[in-house]
């Protein structure tokens, strides 16, 4: 006997084929934006601000050298002293969800907090690593398109 340790969740988040009554329901990983800028905690706010705004965003996720989420920078950080380090302004413990969670499972939280960081789960070295950011508007739109599927 062999044990596929990643299981159905690992299979699903890597886009491999599933079948069944509700196959095709959209998950957090399907809708999360993967292009949100990241920075390190010791970078200077002014430098990060320029990079983030040049990329057309106002949000930046703070990660360590392995991509593990430490916090996030929001719009109000861009008005702070340019020479200040990111860690002085970053919001610790931003709300997160797993990539395999279905949109209909997270929509109530999204309606409260506006966005969720999607991070890898598990106890291995990838646990806590950033996958993307799931925004309420994106999830609402996809749920409307997807609502004919059973839940």
């Amino acid at each position, binding site marked *: *006997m*062999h*044990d*596929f*340790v*990643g*299981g*159905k*969740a*690992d*299979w*699903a988040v*890597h886009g*491999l*084929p*599933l*079948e*069944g*009554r*509700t*196959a095709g*329901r959209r998950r957090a990983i399907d809708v999360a934006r993967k292009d949100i800028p990241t920075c390190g905690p010791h970078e200077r706010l002014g430098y990060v601000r320029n990079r983030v705004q040049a990329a057309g965003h106002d949000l930046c996720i703070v990660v360590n050298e392995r991509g593990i989420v430490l916090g996030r920078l929001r719009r109000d950080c861009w008005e702070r002293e340019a020479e200040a380090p990111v860690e002085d302004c970053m919001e610790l413990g931003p709300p997160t969800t797993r990539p*395999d969670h279905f949109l209909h499972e997270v929509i109530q939280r999204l309606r409260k907090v506006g966005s969720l960081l999607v991070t890898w*789960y*598990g*106890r291995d070295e990838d646990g806590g690593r950033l996958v993307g950011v799931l925004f309420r508007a994106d999830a609402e739109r996809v749920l409307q398109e997807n609502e004919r599927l059973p839940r």
Partner: protein
Amino acid sequence: MPIQITREDVQRMTAEGAVVIEVLPESEYTEEHIVGAVNIPLRKLDRQTTAHLPKDAPLIAYCYDTD
């Protein structure tokens, strides 16, 4: 002891004829399962319930995730 394998192993082994078994309850299997998997809930997994499976094919069991 079962041999731990990855999704890449599952893809390779199923292409070579391995049988995939979802050991979650029937309700979860009905909702969604790996294409081609059969369902034998863990509590029912024994010699009798696996008797119909091919004897010469590798068996791969999975649940929801690592936890």
